[in-house]
């Protein structure tokens, strides 16, 4: 599980995120929603230990991502915004490299590679060079490298961006398949994506969390789009009370 507590991050004078807190339980897919530039990538980079927060903390299965960084990082699979492929390597060689880097036992590297190649549908391209792959396959290889060490926590930064509708569908199916006993955080600015695959939604705007709510609790008649637009339109400087917002949106629909 992931516990994000009171994260702040500023670059000089620019405040990227302020007081961001939320929790993702095991078995949950948390949709991290927000307009471009809201602080989604910054938050995910802090969760994965790529950069530090200015203040606040992140616990990965109870491990502090700053103080127990190596242990915490071992538990995370991470797909950054652009798939981190070495363009000169072949897909299989690349996955082998990531497996070793992620601490998979030498004797199990081949099994791990074979497993994600199957799971992510990479059989046809496993011996191709990463630099020659199409966008959809690059995204899949990115997902495969995030899964290779069978991590309990998955952090996916806009996993379906730039894909065609069929590819989006495939990637979503993949994520849903892997999510069962893991904690997944995925960021997106595609609203229907959240209602289709997520259990919980966190909406972030201008660096603040404006809504954290389980999708089951959102009334059936409420479109996520209305919810999103009404929460980010408020521009409150305090986190908005979810109940209140839901009532207002619900009322608008009635």
């Amino acid at each position, binding site marked *: 599980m992931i516990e994000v507590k009171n994260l702040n991050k500023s670059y000089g004078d620019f405040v990227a995120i302020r007081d961001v807190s939320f929790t993702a339980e095991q078995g949950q897919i948390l949709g991290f929603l927000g307009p471009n530039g809201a602080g989604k990538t910054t938050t995910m*980079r802090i969760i*994965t230990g790529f950069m530090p927060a200015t203040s606040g903390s992140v616990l990965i299965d109870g491990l502090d991502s700053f103080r127990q960084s190596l242990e915490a990082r071992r538990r995370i699979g*991470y797909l*950054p915004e652009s798939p*981190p492929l070495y363009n*000169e390597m072949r897909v299989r060689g690349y996955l082998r*490299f990531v497996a070793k880097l992620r601490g998979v036992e030498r004797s199990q590297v081949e099994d791990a590679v074979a497993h994600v190649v199957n799971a992510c549908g990479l059989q046809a391209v496993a011996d191709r060079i990463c630099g020659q792959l199409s966008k959809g396959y690059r995204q899949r290889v990115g997902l495969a490298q995030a899964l290779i060490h069978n991590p309990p926590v998955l952090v996916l930064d806009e996993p379906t961006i730039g894909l065609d509708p069929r590819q989006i569908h495939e990637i979503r199916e993949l994520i849903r398949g892997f999510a069962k006993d893991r904690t997944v955080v995925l960021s997106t600015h595609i609203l229907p994506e959240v209602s289709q695959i997520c259990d919980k939604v966190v909406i972030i705007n201008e660096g603040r969390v404006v809504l954290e709510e389980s999708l089951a609790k959102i009334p059936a008649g409420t479109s996520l789009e209305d919810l999103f637009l009404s929460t980010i339109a408020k521009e409150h400087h305090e986190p908005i009370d979810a109940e209140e917002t839901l009532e207002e949106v619900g009322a608008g629909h009635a």
Partner: protein
Amino acid sequence: MRNTLTIAAKELQSYFVQPIAYVVMAVFLLLGGWFFFVLIRRFDLLMHIYAAMGNQQALQGLNLNEAVISPLLQDLSIVLVILVPAITMRTFAEEKRVGTYELLLTAPVRTGEIVAGKFLASATLVLIMIALSGIYPLILAIFGNPEMGVIGAAWLGMALLAVAFVSIGLFTSSLTQNQIIAAISCFGVLLLLYVISWPAELGSATLGDVLRYLALPEHFDQMIKGVIDTTDIVYFLSVILVALFLTQRSVESARWR
């Protein structure tokens, strides 16, 4: 250690796949061959002139180590000043630009292991190149009788010099995501280390000594002549360690800035 070797193997492989390694080695050996040819021709010419003049003393004074090996290594060291930045410029800068830096820094791997892995790979490539340049003294040994001890010391000097260059290149690459900036700044530092002793005579004696100690040729030229002095070895090892330490700090700071 395991992580270091994993990274080193992958880096070294990509040098050969890209194929930077072959281009760099070809350029180094082609230029080396040209210098070698010119120096041998010059040696041959001098020998004929001295013999024609009947100048036995000059003929005795003519020796392969001084007339061929030393100038050859001096020329090759200048080639290294240009080639090593080209080898190391991509190490960190490219990862940052392509986005694989996120993969590397979020993996359960220590910063020191990343730096060590990249250092090992680049140093290995450069050392392979220098080992291949051993063909020139080999040719001399077949057709003449150079002093092999001196040659050993000279090649050890060049190996240390090249590895020191690599460390500096890693450092400049860790500072930027632009490979050209990484290469040019490495080139600048290496060239500065070459010329830093030029004003040594102009200032105070102490300053002159400091500048002379910092200058690469002061140490390299000793080893080329076959003199292995601990001062010189310590100098090269210090450059390597300081540069690698700075690289580690620079990568680490990107992580916790």
